[in-house]
């Protein structure tokens, strides 16, 4: 099942907030620098329907939660990066289990794409066995 392009953008912003580029003392690569959009296509093509449906629902929840979480009447992608991070951090500390699992879900899905890429693994210091990217990633973005 394909997602609306705005839903794809929302998810891209979530992943870019979780995995920013050029962190001092951290990885230089971030979600913006790798083809996470193609990983989403791969997820949608292969993952069980309940997983992709659940992820879609969670994208909506996160997009419209800032008012209730930090009192800002904006969607998640419309917030400044610092505020987006504050939303994720607050959700992650929630006493309500399902709420605090929200950031974990996006982190887990993002990790399967991002941290599986040889370029990212090399930055993490791994002795990478596969020099080519996984099928879904195709050629790296220029």
């Amino acid at each position: 099942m394909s997602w609306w392009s705005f839903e794809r953008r929302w998810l891209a912003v979530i992943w870019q907030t979780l995995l920013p580029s050029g962190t001092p003392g951290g990885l230089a690569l971030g979600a913006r620098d790798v083809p996470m959009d193609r990983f989403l296509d791969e997820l949608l093509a292969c993952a069980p329907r309940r997983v992709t449906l659940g992820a879609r629902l969670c994208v909506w929840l996160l997009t419209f939660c800032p008012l209730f979480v930090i009192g800002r009447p904006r969607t998640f992608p419309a917030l400044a990066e610092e505020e987006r991070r504050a939303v994720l951090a607050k959700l992650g500390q929630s006493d309500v289990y399902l709420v605090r699992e929200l950031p974990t879900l996006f982190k887990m899905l993002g990790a399967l794409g991002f941290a599986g890429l040889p370029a990212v693994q090399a930055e993490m210091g791994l002795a990478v066995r596969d020099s080519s990217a996984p099928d879904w990633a195709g050629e790296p973005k220029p």
Partner: protein
Amino acid sequence: MSGAIVELGDVRDQARVEDAADVVIIGTGAAGATAARVLTEAGLDVVMFEEGAHVRQEQLRSDMWSSFKHVWRDLGFQVASGRAFTPVLQGRCVGGTTTINGAIIHRMPEKIWARWRDEFGLGGALPYPELERIWDVLDRELFVGPAPESVLGKNNSLMRTATERLGIAGNLIRRNVSGCEGSAHCNQGCPTGRRQSMNVSYVPRSVAAGARVYATCPARSLITRRGRAAGVVGQFRDPLTGARGPEVVVHARRAVLLAASAIQTPLFLAKNRIGVGAGVLGKRLQAHPGTAVVGVFDAPVEMYRGATQGYESVHYWDERMKFETVAMPPELAMARLPGLGPELMRELAQYAHLAVWGVQVRAEAHGSVRAGLFGGTHIAYDMTDADIRVLKLGVRRLTEMMFAAGARQVLPGVHGLPHAISSVDELSPLFDAPDDPRLFHTIAAHLFGTALMGGSAFNSVVGPRFETHDLPGLFVIDSSVFPTNMGVNPQHSICALAWLAAERLV
């Protein structure tokens, strides 16, 4: 007859496949492949059904997603629900879960066997000396031995340091590997074929002895004749797209063996209305839920070098916990690390300095398995409060061990605690928190008890000879029949019981 592994691509053009064998086996994992090894070498003709694909070594990649996609069940997304969600990890491919497992070999503890004898009356059916005789053969054939120093790597040797400094028992893990290169890729599927999982050991050995394996071909129903199991019907199906191929009908002259695992076996039985009368089918699901503790060291640990799991401690087995090292792949580490945004990116940059060790609990909880909506599987599982207390203590002990080994910080991964701690005392609030599974992220990888063995059709699904009470000729030979969990890794016990069941058919 000559053996072969047949997949959807080989038969796409055929309308139907028909075959016959002395014994038909459903599942090619620890139980199914072992039974095939025994039966084929005793001269019997064997056919095996396998839902997953036959993944060749050269197809295995080192990233987790590729492995999830081709080798794991449900792409690794199978979960049990309770108060918390618990991923229930299984393989789905030729070789079953042995294809992704850590190669840890243990014999069933005698205390567990004594419990099976005293509480469940199974001493006569499963004599311990018989099991020991079989384990000796399995050890030889699957190259079982302690992890050699040459592939220990730091993640494993640090746990040894910890046990020595704290004065607790620890040991090199006995593994079923031949010439392990220490690539720490066991969970992605061994890229060099060194781990003696069933896909490189008993499946090819059985095929060489004449077995036919229908892979990408889930078994669907049973053929019965004069009140006996007389065959199996399956249908080829692409594991990823679901595209269907020809139906396969295999007639069984002597027996049908069900070895589809403690999750899929009860589902198959329930679908075929077998074993439902006693009210225990799919109930009594037991597991060894576990969680991981991450240590941050000043010197590089490089857990991607060395045996994936090479060191363990069963020192506290009587307190229902076991510790083992586990080289966590970067994707799973990223999901487990506590940070978000720049903090996460800094944690990832120190991946080479992380050590990961796990605690698995011999939990007393009972869960259940049944068919879910839209052809899915519904697994319910909730650790008891007492189990959670064991888990808490296990996390505390692992944390002590990490500091004893020289960790600068520990990332306990527990809700309500700081992301990173510098002393064990900082864990204290955990013991004031409610005994709630939602404090942790746990997984379950060892599964038992969903088609219980026992003496009577009133309280069990199979009898002491592994034959179902309801349908003569149908035998359940996987860990579904285990009356309890064991507190140690189960593959060797599963193989031994399947071996015993197969020998009795010869």
